[in-house]
């Protein structure tokens, strides 16, 4: 399964989002009212989810802020790590 699709499905199950994968655009902001509306608790869960399912370890909060923008930014970081 492509990384983006897998990320969306994991987000829905792990963050208990009441929506389908199709509702999450690749560049839809994850946080804030203009996007999906995730909060800081979800951010923490995303970090755990990426480590658990992709072996991706977030180095620090700055990196987390950079990566946890939207599905595209997360997928790029995850794929880069796999490639490396």
């Amino acid at each position, binding site marked *: 399964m492509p990384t983006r699709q897998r990320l969306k499905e994991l987000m829905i199950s792990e963050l*208990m989002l009441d929506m389908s994968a199709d509702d999450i655009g690749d560049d839809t902001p994850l946080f804030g009212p203009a996007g999906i509306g995730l909060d800081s*608790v979800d951010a*923490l*869960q995303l970090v*755990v989810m990426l480590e*658990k399912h992709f072996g991706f370890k977030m180095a620090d909060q700055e990196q987390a802020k950079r990566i946890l923008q939207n599905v595209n930014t997360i997928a790029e970081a995850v794929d880069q790590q796999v490639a490396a």
Partner: protein
Amino acid sequence: MSHSILITGANGALGLAIAEYFLTREADCRVFLGVRERRDRAEELAARFPGRADLITLEITAPEAWQTALSEIAAKASPLAVLINNAGFHDDALLANMSQDQWSRVLDTNLNAVFHGCQAVLPTMMRQRQGRIVNISSLSAISSPAGQTNYAAAKAGVIGLTQSLAKEAARMGITVNAVCPGYIEGGLPADWTPEHLKALKMQLPMRRFAKPAEVAAAVFFLASPEASYITGSVLKIDGGML
């Protein structure tokens, strides 16, 4: 696979009662008895449940000690599923006479240690997407008796921590609750005279102190799968005292 439970202050009356409650009612649990220097009663309990109860040395005010303890648990059994922050003590004095040391030690043991414990177990529980934390607060957190500014503040802090963390952890399948026991048999200061105890009982609606098992039963329930929608709750167990 059995699930692991860690109870701090497990050599005291309430800690022992909680441990025994789990051990006698849940066949598949492995109970870790957090102790420091005093360990005789916990050793006796562990001997009664071979292979199911282990003593674990834990200096609860030291964050690194929590990491060591959790590694030890993970090496011996399944990842921690339940944490009971039970250890505590009080050192009463009027605030006007209270030393900085009296204040700090009571805050360290009763409140800061709960922070260290919760922070230490969260990553494990988050990965499992389930967990139960039960914090033992006190009726003093609500009634705030004179002479206990340190203890009442610490235990009220435990309630605040519990309710705030409950919101943070709810979506991760982790519940965080607190209980506030009143007077418990076996948990009263040794220097209280029989006359004082008698007079105290007369003031209680049930005219008796709680049996440790009566508090343990509530802790057991809050830690059970059946309590899955209860989080951020504060349950007073005081025989109607307040």
